[in-house]
């Protein structure tokens, strides 16, 4: 798209018009977007076209319509993080990840639906109603970046930003048959990302191809003076991909704990098939072990909820956000505002996190979880002594119908089992679509690499996408 705009084959305005028309046609059913910004997008497109006509240099994402998740701030626009609490909140500054998009001449077209504050795996906890899976409107799109995954799957835009705390980019990408990248923790600045669990939150992206994700990562990565935990830049990846034709010399580790019997048969078969395809292109498969993975979900929930309870303490109805007025006492005002502004799942997780970090429990619960985390990171390091990347299914189950798991926290919990280990260890991971269930539901598998090695997961997915068409399945006409 960017190349087409730069070369003059298509104008940015034409591209944006087409995207807006497609959104208008299909999004009333899908509800991938919480809000579309047509005027902003068309004005930005016109500016790009003028600059191209004037012979100016254009950025690497010139004219590309991009959707941003509702938890990334864009100055002057609303950002609600899927919550009633922030329904009318207007951002006074722009997230660094969005600034990088704009600096690369991408065109931000709207904000996408999400589970409230990222807390969910189906986009059903959004205060603005669920998003539907473009492959089947009865299915969930996954979550929490379900709106972004659905927007790319529906061809509303070739790229959408998401965020991934415990799998929130990878799992919806798998459910919607698109490619999703969760970078190394700290690779992309979190400044302007509404926090869920800071030590796990990563800005990620969803696109049709790994190549487009590489293009995005090269513009997005790098140290940001606005985020003290951001990492220094690494060499660009896109240029490396051009020469990547096969996987010779690549050792792929299959952690048996993530490829175990809790898996749906079709899911396991799809990942096996992906492994086999990689072997055909020259990769070697080896079995590895991550013994601490069995405890990852528990550790993840303790850490994520404790940090969430902390991060969400700022929503007190004083400076911004929903306030229930009428209460004459301060404490009652704050309690009423938070109880009205947060949905049930968010409230439950805040209470759990308060428990996990409260006096007398912190050492046992949150502290123990942090020790598990340290041990898990050591497991990954040991596994990477034997291989370059790891392969596992993205979700233990295929996309499921809306409402089918809402009241089953255990099932929701298991949804995250395969994605949270990389989150706890802060590793880069990419989910690519591969195969489908007998009834046509998309399936995805995830590549995980050592910290800082996004190039590895992008390369392996890119090579496989060059020689296949799993990622090109388009659900909508």
């Amino acid at each position, binding site marked *: 798209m960017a190349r087409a705009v730069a070369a003059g084959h298509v104008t940015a305005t034409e591209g944006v018009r087409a995207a807006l028309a497609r959104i208008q046609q299909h999004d009333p059913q899908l509800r991938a977007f919480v809000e579309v910004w047509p005027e902003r997008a068309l004005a930005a497109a016109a500016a790009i076209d003028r600059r191209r006509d004037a012979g100016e240099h254009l950025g690497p994402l010139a004219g590309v319509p991009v959707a941003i998740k509702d938890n990334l701030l864009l100055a002057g626009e609303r950002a609600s993080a899927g919550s009633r609490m922030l329904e009318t909140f207007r951002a006074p500054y722009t997230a660094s990840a969005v600034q990088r998009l704009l600096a690369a001449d991408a065109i931000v077209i709207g904000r996408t639906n999400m589970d409230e504050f990222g807390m969910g795996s189906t986009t059903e906890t959004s205060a603005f109603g669920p998003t539907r899976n473009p492959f089947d409107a009865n299915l969930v799109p996954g979550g929490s970046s379900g709106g972004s995954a659905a927007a790319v799957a529906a061809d509303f835009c070739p790229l959408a930003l998401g965020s991934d705390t415990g799998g929130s980019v990878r799992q919806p990408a798998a459910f919607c048959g698109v490619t999703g990248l969760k970078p190394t923790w700290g690779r992309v600045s979190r400044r302007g990302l509404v926090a869920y669990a800071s030590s796990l939150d990563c800005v990620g992206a969803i696109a049709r191809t790994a190549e487009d994700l590489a293009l995005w990562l090269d513009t997005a990565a790098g140290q940001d003076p606005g985020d003290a935990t951001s990492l220094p830049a690494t060499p660009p990846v896109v240029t490396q991909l051009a020469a990547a034709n096969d996987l010779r010399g690549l050792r792929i580790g299959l952690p048996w704990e993530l490829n175990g019997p809790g898996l749906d048969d079709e899911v396991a078969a799809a990942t096996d098939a992906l492994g086999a395809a990689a072997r055909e292109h020259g990769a070697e498969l080896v079995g590895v072990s991550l013994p601490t993975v069995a405890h990852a979900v*528990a550790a993840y929930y303790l850490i994520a909820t404790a940090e969430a309870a902390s991060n969400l303490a700022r929503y007190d109805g004083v400076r911004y956000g929903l*306030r229930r007025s009428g209460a004459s006492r301060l404490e009652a005002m704050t309690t009423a505002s938070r109880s009205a502004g947060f949905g049930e799942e968010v*409230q*439950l997780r805040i209470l759990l996190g*308060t428990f996990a970090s409260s006096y007398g429990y912190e050492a046992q*619960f949150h502290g123990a979880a942090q020790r598990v985390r340290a041990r898990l990171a050591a497991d990954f390091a040991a596994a990477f002594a034997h291989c370059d990347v790891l392969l596992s299914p993205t979700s233990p189950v295929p996309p499921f119908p809306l409402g089918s798991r809402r009241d089953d*926290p255990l099932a929701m919990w298991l949804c995250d*089992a395969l994605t949270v280990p990389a989150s706890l260890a802060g590793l880069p991971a990419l989910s690519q679509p591969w195969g489908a269930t007998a009834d046509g539901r998309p399936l995805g598998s995830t590549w995980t690499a050592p910290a800082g090695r996004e190039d590895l997961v992008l390369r392996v997915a890119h090579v496989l996408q060059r020689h296949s068409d799993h990622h090109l399945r388009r659900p909508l006409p």
Partner: protein
Amino acid sequence: MHPGRATPSIAPHVPTPPDVDRALIERLTSLSRLFLPAERHEALAQRLQRIVAAFGSLAEVADDAERATPAAGGPLRADVPGPTLSVDEVLANAPAAAANCFVVPRVVDA
């Protein structure tokens, strides 16, 4: 292909009876500034129960391990004053404001 597939790895851990009583729920809702209607106490109790149960498994694997802690970072910010928000920007999203300040119900220290 996978030698160890026989061992269940993502199955839930056996829950142990939690000590989730009314006092604990009141303490948590008070600390969190949330009002939890009685009909939702059960949902919280169930989830707490899972956390408590999960803790048992965490404690046994991680008794001796170091805690993961924040890593060392890059250079710190130089002490140079920068731009601030205007008062209008500060108060732009405020539910209530007066005299260039946020307004909340009167706080009485007692």
